[in-house]
C-alpha cells in the first residue's frame, strides 16, 4: 500500500515538477506548480503529517499560487521565447541528470534511519494541529512572532512596490 501510493505520488510530483521547468507557457507552469504542491501535500499525508498537508494545500496551492496566476494575468506574460541553447545549459541538464541518477541514492544513504521502512500507523510523532500549535506558541513562540514581522515587511513591500503613484 505504502509502496503504491509513494510511487504514484512521486511520479506525479516529478512529472509536474519537470513540467514546471520545461514547459514554456507560464500558465501551464503555474498550473503544474499547483499540481506539484498538491502531490507534495499528498506525500505529506503518506508521512502522516496531516496538518502540514492541509497547510500546504491552503497556503501554498491556495494562496501563493493564486498570487502567481494573478501576476501572470496582470502582466499578460506571453509564451516564453526560447533563449539560445548554450553549452552551459546542456552541461547543466546533463549534470542534473547524472546527479539525480547516481549521486542522490548514494547521498541519501548516508543519513541515519535512511533504511527504515515506512509503515502507516506507526508514526512516533503527532502531526495534529493541536500538537503543532502547542509547539509553535511555546518553544518556537519568538520565531512565530518574528514571522509576523516578516509578513509585515512583505506586506509593506508589496504596497510600496505596487502602489499607484497618486502623489507624483
Amino acid at each position, binding site marked *: 500500500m505504502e509502496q503504491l501510493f509513494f510511487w504514484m505520488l512521486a511520479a506525479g510530483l516529478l512529472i509536474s515538477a519537470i513540467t514546471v521547468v520545461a514547459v514554456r507557457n507560464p500558465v501551464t507552469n503555474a498550473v503544474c506548480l499547483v499540481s506539484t504542491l498538491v502531490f507534495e501535500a499528498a506525500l505529506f499525508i503518506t508521512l502522516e503529517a496531516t496538518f502540514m498537508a492541509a497547510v500546504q494545500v491552503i497556503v501554498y496551492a491556495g494562496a501563493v499560487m493564486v498570487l502567481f496566476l494573478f501576476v501572470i494575468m496582470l502582466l499578460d506574460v506571453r509564451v516564453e521565447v526560447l533563449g539560445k541553447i548554450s553549452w552551459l545549459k546542456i552541461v547543466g541538464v546533463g549534470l542534473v541528470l547524472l546527479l539525480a541518477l547516481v549521486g542522490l541514492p548514494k547521498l541519501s544513504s548516508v543519513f541515519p534511519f535512511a533504511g527504515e521502512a515506512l509503515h502507516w500507523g506507526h508514526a512516533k510523532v503527532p502531526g495534529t494541529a493541536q500538537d503543532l500549535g502547542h509547539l509553535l506558541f*511555546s518553544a518556537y513562540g519568538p*520565531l512565530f512572532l518574528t514571522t509576523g*514581522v516578516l509578513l509585515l*515587511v512583505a506586506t509593506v513591500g508589496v*504596497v510600496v512596490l505596487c502602489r499607484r503613484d497618486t502623489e507624483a
Partner: protein
Amino acid sequence: MTAWLSPEVLLVLAGVGLILVDSLTPRSWRRLISPLAFGLALGLLFWTLWSSGQSIPDSWRNLFVSDGLSSIFKPFFVLCLVAVSGMSARYRLGTEESVRAEFLALPFFSTAGLCLLASARDFLAVFVALELVSISLYLLVAFHRTKQASLEAGIKLLVMGGLSTGFLVMGIAWLYAAAGTTEFTRLLLEQAGRPVTPALLLAAGLVVTSLAFKIAAVPFHAWAPDVYEGAPTPITAFLAVASKAAGFVLLMRIFGWGAFALDSVGTVFRPILLTMGIATVTLGTLAALPQRNLKRLLAYSGIAHAGYMLLALGTLGEAGMGTVVAYLWAYLFATLPVLIFINEMERNHGNADLRHLDGLARREKGAALGLMLCFLSMAGLPPLVGFSVKLAVFTTLWNAGEMPALVVAGFMAVIGLGFYLAPIRAMYWEREADAIPATRLPSFLVWVLLAVGLLNLFLGFYPKPLVALAERSLAPAPLSRQESGR
C-alpha cells in the same frame, strides 16, 4: 520585564511606530520623519550599549542566547542602523518620496533580524531571522522602483537569496536527518565523542553555503557587486557592513562554540574555509583593480575583506575568532565613512563614478583626509587600524602554519594597494580645483568623516579597545568547549 525590552523588540516597535506615525500624522509633518528615525536609531544604540549582555526572556532561551559575541555585535548592527538612518535621511528618493517612512522603517526590521541572528542558537531561529533580514533587504534594494538599476539589483538579490535560502532549508532538513536537532548545543553534544557522520558534514556544508553567500565569499559572491551598485547607497552600506558581519557572527558561532565546533568537523571544514578564503581574497582584489565605480570598488574590496576574515576564521582557533571580531569592527570604521561619502556623492552627481573624487582634497580638505585614512585602513597600511587587524590575520595564519594562505594574503594585500590608492590619487593628484564644480558637503558630515578617519588612526596606534572587544566576545561563552565534552 526589562528582559522583554531587548533591542530586537524595540527595533520592531520603532519600525512599526515610524510607519504608524507617518500614516497617522498630517502630511506636512513628514519632514520630521527622518530626524525621528535617526533619533530613534541613536536612542536604540545607547539602549543597546547599555543593555548589552543583559539576559533575555526565559521563554527565548532555547532559541537565543546572550553571550559575549551577541553583546558585541548587537551594538555593531545598531550602529550600522544609525549610519543607515542618517544616510537614508539624506538619500534622494525622487518619486518615492511619499514612502520615505517605509524606507526609514524597514532597516529597523532588518536590524532586528540581525540582532536575532547574532544571538541565535538554533538553526531554525537562524533561518527565520535570516529571512527577516533578507526579505527586508530585497525590498530595500529594489526600493527605488523607478530606477532600473535598483530593481535589477533587487531581483538579482532575490533570485540569489532564494537559492541560498533553498540550500539553507535543505541543510536544516538534513541536519534533522543527521542529528535530529538544530539546536547548537545539542548538535554539539550529539556528536561529541563520536566519529563524525558524513550526513552531518553534508548538512553543515549546505548551511555554510548559505552563510558564505551572506558574506559574499567566492564562489557565492557574484551578486555582491551588482547589488551594491544598484541598491540605494544607504542599503549598500547596510549590505556591505551589517549583513556581512551577521554572516561572520554566525560562522564564528557555529564553528567557534556551537554546532560544528568539533575537531572532527573542523578537520574537514578547515581546508574548505581556507581555500574559499584564498579564492575570495584573490578574486576580490584582482577584480577590484579595473573598477571605476566607487560602489563596485567597495563591493570587491568587501569581498576581499571577507576573504581575509575567512582566512582567519578558517584556522578555526580562538585567535582566528578574535581576529574576525576585531576585523569586523575595523572594517566598519573604514567602510562606513566611505559609504556615507558615496551617499553624498550620489546626491550631488547622480552616480558613484571615481572621477567625482577628482580634486576633492582641494575642495574638502577634512573630508578628503578622513576618506584617505579610511581607504588606507582598508588597504591595511600601518599605523591604521586596518593594518592591526591584517597583522592579526597574518599572525593567525602563521601560527596555524597555513603558509600558502599567508603568501596569497600577503601578495593580495600589496596588489590591493593598487586600487585603494586610486581614489586617493583622484582626490589628491588629479585635476585642479577650479576644474570641478564645487558642491559643498554639510560641515557636520565633514566632521564625521574626519573623526572616523582619525579614529582609524587612533585605533591603529592604540588597538587596545579592539583587543578588548575581541577578548570580550570570546571570553564568556556559555556554549563553551567544556560543555561539548572535550
